[in-house]
């Protein structure tokens, strides 16, 4: 079954483009289904396909040589990925993995996309907006990871919220911690894992257990 024009019109690059023009793309687009946890793109792949999420969610991430993962973005329906590889003529700088069951991915090869873009300024405009949005996101991550001691801030937040109140233990979500630390949730997840690596805390399902208060204090810069 090929992609419908309606589905194409919901993809970030093709919003606002006349349906007549999109008709020619319907035969060119491919589609693939992925199960939860399956890899769509691996870092270093040289495929020149531009991918769009049709249904489900795709996690975009980088993995360090020690196996640590940094989530870069959660890609939702209509959003693209592998743009950097396609437009820079290079390998993919990140991996992409299906997070949801029955994740539907639409793909178009660079050789098919470029001639269409040459004839459709609106698609070029949309692509620039998508790429600029991604650049802004990446710059935010660079700022958080390079200039902010997020792990220290998260350590401080944990110390400040570790007091046992009348209603029991305090509770915080990763989003709340991110908002308090002035960073992205993806960076908080990484910081919690780093704190666990130091031996200051232990993560257990819905609990963050402070196992070495002195060390956590030190990491928080509180003593």
């Amino acid at each position: 079954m090929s992609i419908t024009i309606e589905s194409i019109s919901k993809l970030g690059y093709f919003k606002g483009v006349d349906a007549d023009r999109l008709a020619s793309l319907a035969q060119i687009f491919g589609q693939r289904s992925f199960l939860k946890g399956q890899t769509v793109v691996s870092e270093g792949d040289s495929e020149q396909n531009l991918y769009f999420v049709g249904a489900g969610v795709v996690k975009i991430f980088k993995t360090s040589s020690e196996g640590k993962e940094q989530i870069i973005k959660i890609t939702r329906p209509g959003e693209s990925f592998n743009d950097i590889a396609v437009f820079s003529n290079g390998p993919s700088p990140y991996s992409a993995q299906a997070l949801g069951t029955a994740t539907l991915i639409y793909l178009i090869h660079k050789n098919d996309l470029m001639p269409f873009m040459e004839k459709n300024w609106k698609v070029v405009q949309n692509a620039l907006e998508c790429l600029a949005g991604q650049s802004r996101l990446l710059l935010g991550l660079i700022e958080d990871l390079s200039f902010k001691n997020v792990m220290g801030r998260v350590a401080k937040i944990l110390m400040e919220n570790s007091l046992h109140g009348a209603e029991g233990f305090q509770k915080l979500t990763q989003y709340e911690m991110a908002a308090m630390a002035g960073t992205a949730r993806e960076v908080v997840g990484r910081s919690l894992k780093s704190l666990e690596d130091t031996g200051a805390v232990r993560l257990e399902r819905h609990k963050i257990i402070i196992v070495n208060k002195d060390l956590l204090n030190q990491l928080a810069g509180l003593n």
Partner: protein
Amino acid sequence: MSTLPVLDPTKCDGCGLCVTVCRCGALVMTGEIVTLVQVDDCGWCCDCELVCDTGALQCPYEIVTIED
């Protein structure tokens, strides 16, 4: 029975992405919104919170101190 994520149905826009990422079946679509079903093995992966764009799903952590 295990502790489950916290759902605010008033914020749920019914996109269903959380249902597709849920590993234990605790989240199901009921009509146009998501509801929670009691399960024994929610592993607190927090993927539902991660993909929820409206903040309807939350996976709070209890912050517990082990006294020396």
